[in-house]
């Protein structure tokens, strides 16, 4: 296939914000009129004024426009630790012709992912340890060479894909004395082949979601893997974190999509000798690679399933009088296995948030809650605007399939007091999850820290878990002396046969709190404790990284941890992949 330059350049900082989320040209600002506006022209929301958002933030988080805090202008070379240099490694690397850099901005950009902690450091502090060198392999063989050199000269490697990690996985262990090399896969962005008989695509691991889907679309295909970070996250990153896409109901999660993978380890290349739909060959080695979080090796190439592009794509929504009704409905939909490509249930707080994103004057954003329908729903049907919640739907397939499925889903919904709420409401729900990371940067400026976390949980405990976790956060905030009630909200964001994935946002106003990030982390820790006590898991798709290590041993037990350590000891005895994620890295 034709070569194409990656959308995100080598010098990422030229296109992307160095201390926040996404493209430099796209951000929320408070304009001259004191209204929130989204800049740029990349998104549907771009150039729109959002008249409700400011009030929403004032109401829910107690922000005030007078109390503003500006981030540090930049982290200068002086604030960046000087690189540790492994001379032999560098001189041998030079001979291979693989490009590399020790420019401090290049290194800084690859020192972090996007947890609250990391972004806060960028805005207010400095990192104790960052990569000493960035290398850009362009193909599988480059990676093999890099790993060999690292083994030979005892350097430490951290694979870097799109840098969207939200588990602290990319952070450098502060105690690491060896040279740390960030292996940036972004130039490994080729689609190697497409097989339309078996419906598979083989691509290099550095390709990012938007490029992969766009280029497959040109041929009439898609993988259908759409994590909310798909604009920036990479194929290799997905495999390494066990990512999950919004449309997994049709296409599957990354582990379902993965047909073959090439994995370069210090011991050699780990891969299967066939590309088959299923295999019984002992424990599946793919599952050693999936979720390895950069602790065992580097994914260089992967073969994924593809599907013809759907003919028809349609948003929808259902309004429920209570969250409980909504959960019961989703459960029933899962039971009947008739979930559309995506079905998500937002609680009342998130529904209101969605509404706050309604632009000023735009007919496409008109919503059912305006005018007559609002009256209809709230007055006639007895829906309490402070309690109702919305399920957002995305249907994909042929026209007939979509029509049939729509009918079925709305029928089920009606059994749980759900009323169709229109396509706009649905669409706005999905938009929220794409722009939320941008909104966080605005919130930062008004003393709001915010973060999301997620879990998976059996159906019978979904309702209790959602309520208890939010409640626990409120109580912890009270106890920690947070002055304003926090904003907590959740949605059931994926459904499965045996349970669901629940996604939380939590934001609070930290004026008067001396150590906001630490406080945040303590509270999130309590929330995670509560999640585990409620039958939830350590993570559905964000992974463990460093921030959730504490709960791993309880999750997989001593034998589980021991087995992983043994694996590590065999594959990577010198701890070349020494990022200390999971509990494997603790050698």
């Amino acid at each position: 296939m034709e070569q194409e330059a990656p959308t995100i350049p080598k010098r990422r900082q030229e296109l992307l914000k160095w201390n926040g989320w996404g493209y430099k040209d796209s951000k929320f600002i408070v304009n001259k009129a004191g209204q929130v506006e989204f800049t740029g022209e990349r998104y549907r929301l771009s150039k729109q004024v959002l008249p409700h958002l400011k009030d929403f933030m004032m109401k829910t988080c107690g922000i005030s426009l007078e109390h503003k805090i500006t981030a540090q202008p930049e982290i200068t070379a002086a604030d960046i630790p000087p690189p540790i240099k492994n001379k032999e490694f560098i001189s041998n690397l030079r001979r291979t012709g693989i490009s590399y850099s020790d420019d401090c901005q290049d290194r800084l950009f690859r020192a972090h992912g996007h947890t609250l902690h990391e972004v806060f450091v960028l805005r207010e502090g400095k990192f104790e340890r960052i990569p000493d060198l960035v290398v850009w392999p362009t193909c599988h063989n480059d990676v093999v060479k890099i790993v060999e050199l690292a083994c030979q000269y005892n350097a430490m490697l951290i694979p870097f894909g799109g840098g969207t990690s939200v588990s602290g996985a990319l952070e450098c262990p502060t105690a690491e004395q060896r040279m740390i090399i960030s292996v940036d896969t972004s130039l490994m962005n080729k689609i190697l082949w497409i097989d339309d008989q078996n419906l598979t695509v083989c691509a290099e691991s550095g390709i990012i979601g938007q490029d992969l889907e766009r280029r497959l679309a040109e041929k009439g295909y898609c993988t259908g893997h759409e994590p909310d970070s798909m604009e920036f996250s990479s194929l290799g990153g997905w495999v390494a974190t066990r990512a999950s896409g919004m449309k997994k109901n049709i296409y599957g999660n990354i582990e379902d999509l993965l047909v073959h993978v090439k994995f370069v380890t210090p011991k050699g290349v780990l891969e299967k000798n066939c590309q088959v739909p299923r295999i019984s060959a002992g424990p599946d080695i793919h599952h050693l690679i999936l979720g390895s979080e950069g602790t065992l090796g580097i994914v260089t190439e992967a073969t994924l399933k593809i599907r013809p592009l759907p003919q028809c794509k349609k948003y929808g929504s259902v309004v429920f009088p209570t969250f409980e009704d909504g959960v019961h409905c989703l459960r029933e939909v899962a039971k009947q296995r008739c979930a559309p490509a995506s079905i998500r249930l937002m609680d009342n707080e998130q529904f209101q948030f969605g509404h706050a994103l309604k632009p000023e004057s735009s007919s496409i954003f008109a919503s059912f809650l305006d005018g007559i329908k609002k009256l209809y729903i709230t007055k006639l049907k007895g829906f309490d605007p402070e309690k109702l919640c919305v399920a957002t739907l995305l249907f994909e397939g042929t026209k007939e399939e979509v029509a049939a499925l729509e009918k079925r889903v709305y029928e089920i919904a009606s059994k749980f007091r759900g009323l169709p709420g229109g396509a706009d409401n649905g669409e706005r729900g999905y938009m929220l999850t794409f722009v939320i990371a941008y909104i966080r940067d605005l919130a930062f400026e008004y003393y709001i820290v915010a973060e999301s976390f997620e879990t998976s949980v059996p159906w019978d405990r979904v309702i209790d878990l959602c309520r208890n976790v939010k409640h626990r956060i409120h109580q912890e905030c009270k106890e920690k002396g947070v002055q304003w009630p926090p904003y907590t909200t959740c949605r059931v964001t994926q459904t499965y046969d045996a349970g669901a994935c629940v996604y939380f946002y939590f934001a609070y106003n930290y004026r008067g709190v001396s150590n906001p990030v630490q406080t945040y982390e303590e509270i999130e820790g309590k929330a995670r404790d509560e999640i585990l006590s409620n039958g939830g898991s350590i993570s559905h798709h964000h992974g463990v990284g460093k921030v959730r290590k504490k709960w791993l041993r309880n999750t997989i037990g001593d034998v589980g941890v021991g087995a992983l350590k043994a694996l590590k000891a065999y594959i990577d005895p010198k701890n070349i992949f020494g990022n200390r994620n999971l509990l494997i890295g603790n050698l």
Partner: protein
Amino acid sequence: MDSISEQSRNSWIRKDNPKHVSERHKDMYEDILDDRRSSSDLRWSTRTREDVPTYRYNTPRTPVDIKKHVLKSKRVQYVLEKLSQESGKSIAELTTEAAVILDEMGHNINMGAIRGFAFFLVKIFKQLYNHIYVNEDGIQKVRNLLKDYPVLLMPSHRSYMDFLLISFVFFHYDLPPPAIAAAMDFMSMNFFGWLLRNSGAFYIRRTFGDNELYWAVFTEYVQTQISNSDRPVEFFPEGTRSRTAKSYCPKFGMLSAAIEVYFKANVSDIKIIPISISYSRILEEQLYAYELLGVPKPKESTYGLFQARGVLFNDYGSIHVHIGEPISVSNYCEGVIDRSCHNLLPRFIGGLSFDEQNLVSQMSIQVVLNQQRHFVINPWSMIAAVLMQNKDGISVKQLVKEVEWLKRQASNLGAYIDWPGHEPAETVIQESLKIHKNLVTVNSMDIVEMRQAERKGSDSLMDTAAHHLMLASYRNQLMHVFVRVALITLPINACTQDTLSLDDLFEKYTFLEKLLSRDFIFLPGNTRQDFEQALLVLTHTCGVAVQDKAVQIKTSTNKYTVFFSHMFEPFLLGYWVLCQHLLSLPSIAHDKPMAKPAKMITKEAQMVVARLLREQLIKHPETLSLDLLNNGLMALCNINALHKEKRDGAVYMAPNTVVLTKVTESIAQHIEVPTMPMASINVDTKTVVVNAKL
């Protein structure tokens, strides 16, 4: 209006003479009867209640909805299916059984009944009591908590009145009426049974051992009301009314069922409110005394409760209701409990983990200890304590002196004493003697004496003992304040050496704590702290001298140590007689002593006590208390001086002679004991034959 000359020194003082200040407010307490004496009860009981707090996540339900939920619940359905398979009965049949259980159990709470009940109650309360004091700050706390958390109310239990009281207080303060767990024996009281059920009482059988269906229905019924927090749930950790006015060792069943809701994460926290209810005079005082002696308890009847003899015309003083500091279950469990252990079973199947069970028992004890901390000590308790040590009478003057001394000690130990500051001590005491004139008299020589028993034609020893037990029950209200210091003064007092090393002292303390652990409440694992705390009090305020890690006996034996020790002497004496009796049991083959049912042993021991009292070999009639003897028996079991075995469902006990002999000797080191006559007992003829070989 007072004239200018009579007016106070400072014009901003409205009432200078303390006698003119009403008794409505007292420290943190407020008298909730005060208003009722001056305005319409009818209007009060039918008023609109404002701002009644409700739980944030509550879904409103009627009592019928709750029952429906229980029947449909996974837990009950699961058990129905299981039992159907085991027994061959149809699900329908079993469902009917479950429904019957539910109807027997469930409350039918409704505001109408509660209003009627409040109207009726306030009349009675005004008749019986001068004041009902409630700490308002506690109410405020509960009000706030009710919005955010399921709340468990755990009051102390001394009287039937307790059942009505909390509901009454909550009604007064516009709080939601609690659902109250009541024992079945109550249900048979026609009118009251009905009224209580409609005011929120639900009924639980005293024992339902392995009746699985009952368990399931009961558990679900309690738990759903906590999860949905329809209203606060109230139950008495002691399980039954304490006949001795001391705290009973708590039962764990109800609390386990209740906080399983937290363990299984139906809720993220539960708040427990210990409540201490203190009475100046207990309605059932006499009933209890006879019960303790083993006179069979009359079946509860409405009539029984307000048994003639002028109950309504007596003065029962005041009640203090102290709403204690809330305990957060989640904080209590922090770092001790891993709730994720329930993740591998559906929540309606598994029980509690070992750690959780331990925690529940620990917590029950903590609740009772918290109740104790806030009991209000009535002057009469102190008078009773002094009288118990002056059984032959004491002059009013001396009594006043002693009571004032004791008051200081109790106060130093953290007790809250209900003592009107502006009254001279003598007035306070005279007032008290008046309320309790059924127990004591002041004769013409100004000597305070116990009244002679007046029941005709029956066992005069038992009647005297009943009187003693009544008096003892008031002294008992003071015992928790002194028990820890007394466990130190007992060995000091009994020591025959010049010094007693702290190590030895601690060892003795530990022994006594174990021995008395059924009669008094100790927190397991807290012995060392308790000991050190108590020792500190003794050295700081009671003249106990410690030098080189040893107590200096001579300087340390004083009025304090003697008084405190004597307070507890009857208990040790009772246990000692029990031990002696156990040691005298005939042995069957191979020197193996014969096992007997526990009830029989206590009954026999009581007969031995009676005999010794008649012979005047011992002098504390309260040792006739079956409760005391039974507690001794349990404690002996716990320290392996007895071993238990089950025969046909009944518990049999037999002494472990070696241990028991040691224990008996140890007890005897701490108190004066008589020389035991060799006695043999014939239970059938209820006679004790004392062999002459003294």
